[in-house]
């Protein structure tokens, strides 16, 4: 694995989030999510539907296959035919997500993106998160503003909120986490090769649910490395987002 880089491992871990999704829209937002999503479609999930980043759906060859203006995007989101991967500034133990602002919601210390589509995404579709800088500043006991809805908040909001709510994975520069513990508290699913469990615990500002012996995130195959270099990310943008460490 000498020449396998951390960004390649992240890309494959992101691709794995979409495994089994079939013919739904994969909507990975951000640099590495986009690369990982493309890799999934180029390899084991060929039926995934993806956008060109704006108003078109384009197939794996870049050919326009349908028109998908924002109006139509909400039809997709509210029908449940989508798996979104979003970034976030804060995440808490049950997957509540904040990229709206730091501090008070109405008079924040730092105004960030706003709610964007996070409330609707999380109660309607499979949602995963991408965190390129795993740290206690991001993984916090309590988020300042709830934009994306976590398991505890969905439960408290009632059956209409939990009906289609499904947080899947959190991929970071250090490992992969999920919510498959009895009470949906976040747990460590795998650590990237070269990272220890202690490092992840140290970089997480809350207690993770126990998960026995945590395996390593799988390595990319040679085919996957070739697809990353030649098709999904020939410009190497992924190495700018995640450095080797």
């Amino acid at each position, binding site marked *: 694995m000498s020449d396998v880089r951390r960004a390649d491992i992240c890309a494959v871990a992101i691709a794995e989030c979409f495994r089994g999704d079939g013919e739904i829209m994969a909507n990975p937002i951000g640099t590495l999510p986009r690369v990982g999503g493309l890799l999934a479609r180029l390899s084991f999930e060929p039926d995934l539907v993806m956008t060109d980043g*704006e*108003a*078109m759906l384009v197939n794996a060859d870049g050919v326009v296959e349908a*028109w998908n*203006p*924002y*109006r139509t995007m*909400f039809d997709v*989101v*509210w029908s449940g035919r989508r798996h979104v991967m979003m970034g976030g500034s804060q995440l808490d133990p049950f997957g509540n997500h904040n990229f*709206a*602002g730091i501090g008070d*919601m*109405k*008079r*924040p*210390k*730092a*105004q*960030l*993106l*706003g*709610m*964007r*589509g*996070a*409330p*609707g995404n*999380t*109660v*309607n579709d499979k949602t995963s998160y991408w965190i390129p800088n795993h740290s206690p500043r991001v993984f916090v006991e309590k988020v300042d*503003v*709830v*934009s*994306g*809805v*976590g398991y505890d*908040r*969905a439960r*408290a*909001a*009632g*059956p*209409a*909120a939990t*009906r*289609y*709510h499904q947080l899947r994975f959190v991929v970071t520069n250090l490992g992969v986490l999920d919510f498959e513990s009895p009470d949906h508290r976040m747990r460590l699913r795998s650590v990237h090769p070269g990272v220890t469990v202690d490092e992840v615990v140290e970089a997480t500002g809350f207690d993770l649910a126990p998960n026995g012996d945590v395996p390593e995130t799988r390595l990319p195959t040679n085919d996957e490395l070739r697809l990353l270099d030649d098709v999904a990310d020939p410009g190497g943008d992924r190495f700018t987002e995640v450095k080797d460490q």
Partner: protein
Amino acid sequence: MADKRMTAAEVVGELRDGMTIGVGGWGSRRKPMALVRELLRSPVRDLTVVSYGGPDVGLLCAAGKVAKVVFAFVSLDSIALEPHFRNAKQAGEVDTLELDEGMFLLGLQAAAWRVPFLPTRVGLGSDVVERQPEIRMVTSPYDDGEELAAMPALKLDVALIHQNRADASGNAQFLGPDLYFDDLMVQAADRAFVSCERVVDTADLLKEGSHHTLRISRLWIDGVVETPNGAHFTSCVPDYDRDEAFQRDYAKAAASPETWAEFKAAWLDVSEDDYQRKVAGLGR
């Protein structure tokens, strides 16, 4: 058909303090910037601005025109966070109603359909609902009995949108990849004004795009303003792309009151004709 052509100044002359104004476009894309610039030059203030926000919101906030912003995001796209809006919100200068992007659509749709709200799952469990008493709940009267969010109608006094082409009576055409929600904006408003790159004969509308591009009918439009390059510095494809260099300068002007004053003197305290002449002189 009535000739509804008017000037930007005449449009702004229709606006009053305290009005709720909807602005079309999305982020830094196809914003009615010439109308916004005219509004900046007017004494109108205390506005509630309803927008898929971009520099329209930032400019109006920086100029002290805004009491409240109804938004899901305020972004310059290539610059993720709108710095002028951030300044205003962080300083506590503007009140807000913070929505999910889709709830925003539902609010406009409810206003357009003249119903008080539309039910949705969106917002449940998030601080959109939990921390904003303006958004109330509704229980389904059917057997499912689901408790949903009741997204209230976003009724607008005035809508301002920008399209690629229009005829003199207000039939308007978008030639880019996305209408955004400009149709709902005008339908949600008591009065609606469209600016456009070029006013053409009705018979010429189909020369540049298929019938699918004719999404705004004169039914909804009270005034038409021809403003060539009127979405500058936002994008108005296929007529032109965003002026990224200009946008960077605009964003940098948020650094201090002095930099804002400089930008304002150079680009906002001038007529639209002078603005466009100066932009052309940049040679980009």
